[in-house]
């Protein structure tokens, strides 16, 4: 029996739309709440990121609680970088108890790209082992084999990188995640629909849903920066050029245009099961994108 609204949507055949919000670096959550309010009703679920790019922030679990409070559907992003298996299992018990049952399992960016570079990298588990662990505690025992007093139930997701320069290792990993129980995947940023098509030709054999990750870029400079510094993102030169062609001050406009265009194509051509919009730092324009892609309000 499906556990969450999101899981219901997953099991239906509708076009899924999710987006994400990054918590603040501090206790001032006003802006985050504002963003959540602005799009919680327009999307199927809202991810809350977990120290994205290894920058210390307000926790993802806390952010999911806020989403829940505000009436939205949260997806808890959980990385393996900062907590060992005891802490991870424990956080999942709390999440379940508060009705947060959509979980995205991630390995996590390395400490080096973040802002606390001397921290100890934990990586007690990796993303595949985290998926398995979730299945294990669902079955009523913890990783140590000890019985649990009350078992959780999750809707489990993972990430995949269809535009990796060497694809086969990513596919091997993808299959492991599917075998471990991943019900949905949010991909790394897609910029080239041809590679998405190739990926889907292969991925469609599996009983799992694929949401194409759409990154909103605000300028050519931002694109280059992401290329060099953000793991998992490769912006092609054509996109950088298109951004550069925008009038001064209209970069974000252009980014919205590019994003919306891609989303429309994916939806019209049924390339995959949905999109996951990542407007890193520009969450305020998510509604604009949804509007431009004619997704607001139309699907649920």
């Amino acid at each position, binding site marked *: 029996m499906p556990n969450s609204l999101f899981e219901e949507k997953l099991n239906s055949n509708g076009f899924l739309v999710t987006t994400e919000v990054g918590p603040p670096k501090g206790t001032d959550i006003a802006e985050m709440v504002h963003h959540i309010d602005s799009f919680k009703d327009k999307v199927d679920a809202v991810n809350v990121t977990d120290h994205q790019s290894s920058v210390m922030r307000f926790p993802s679990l806390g952010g999911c609680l806020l989403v829940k409070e505000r009436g939205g559907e949260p997806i808890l992003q959980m990385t*393996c*970088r900062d907590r060992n*298996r005891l802490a991870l299992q424990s956080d999942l018990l709390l999440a379940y108890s508060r009705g947060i049952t959509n979980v995205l399992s991630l*390995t*996590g*960016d*390395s*400490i*080096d*790209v973040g802002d606390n570079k001397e921290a100890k*990298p934990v*990586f*007690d*588990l*990796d*993303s*595949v*082992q985290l998926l*398995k*662990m979730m299945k294990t505690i669902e079955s009523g025992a913890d*990783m140590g084999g000890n019985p649990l007093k009350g078992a959780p139930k999750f809707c489990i997701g993972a*990430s*995949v*990188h269809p535009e*990796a*320069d*060497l694809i*086969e*290792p*990513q596919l*091997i*990993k993808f*299959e*492991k995640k599917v*075998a*471990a129980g991943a019900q949905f995947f949010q991909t*790394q940023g897609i910029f080239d629909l041809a590679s998405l098509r190739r990926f889907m030709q292969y991925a469609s054999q599996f009983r799992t849903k694929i949401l194409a990750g759409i990154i909103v870029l605000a300028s050519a400079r931002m694109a280059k920066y992401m290329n060099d510094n953000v*793991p*998992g993102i*490769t912006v092609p030169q054509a996109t950088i050029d298109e951004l550069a062609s925008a009038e001064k001050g209209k970069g974000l406009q252009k980014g919205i245009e590019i994003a919306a265009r891609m989303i429309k194509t994916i939806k019209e051509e049924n390339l995959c099961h949905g999109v996951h919009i990542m407007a890193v730092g520009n969450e305020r324009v998510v509604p604009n994108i949804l509007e431009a892609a004619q997704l607001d309000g139309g699907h649920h």
Partner: protein
Amino acid sequence: MIVAEQKPLDEIRRMLGPYERVLIVGCGTCMTVCNAGGEREVSFLHSALRLAQAKSGDGAHAFSEYTVKRQCDPEFLDALAEKVGDVDAVLSLGCGIGVQAIAERLANVPVVPGVNTSFMGMAKELGVWDERCAACGDCRLEETGGICAITRCTKAILNGPCAGTKNGKCEANKDMDCGWILIYKRLEQLRQLDKMRRYYPARNFRAIPRPRRIVVNKGSIANAGEGNA
């Protein structure tokens, strides 16, 4: 082998601060091979310390030198014990093992480390050492085509690669290869790619729990000397 780098000169001088007569002890094995603490480096450091002292005007140090074959076996330290009669401190250019071995042996003489022991690694070419082994105690090199996922992957994951790999390099250091892409290529070459398709469960991080000891021939080494006193 064990690879180390000499500590910065001012750090060494700061640690030597209170001591007057200092014996600089080198090591003739690993530290010689990696150019961090062999006889030549001892002599060079000795000169540098005296020069620095003269330049800054502080530090009432008088230095002497001695290099042992290895610092990590008690027999090699016998001769050392004789030399420390009137020495206030020992500056050891041995790896962390050597520094501690000397400290254990010379109960009343403080020992200062002169190098930062870095890793267990191999020489790729002259002057370049790469880490290869983390002494995890649970070697699974058979699963990964002879390439260690613990030392070659910055996240030490067992089901790799992560999404951060780009052009075969690691997201954390673009000069270093992504360990998992290396593993993938090698397994492919060996026609053993099925090993990569297997699910590897979470590591046993306490395969050999710390503090660590290995005992061979019970009754001889185990009963000899102080151990972890």
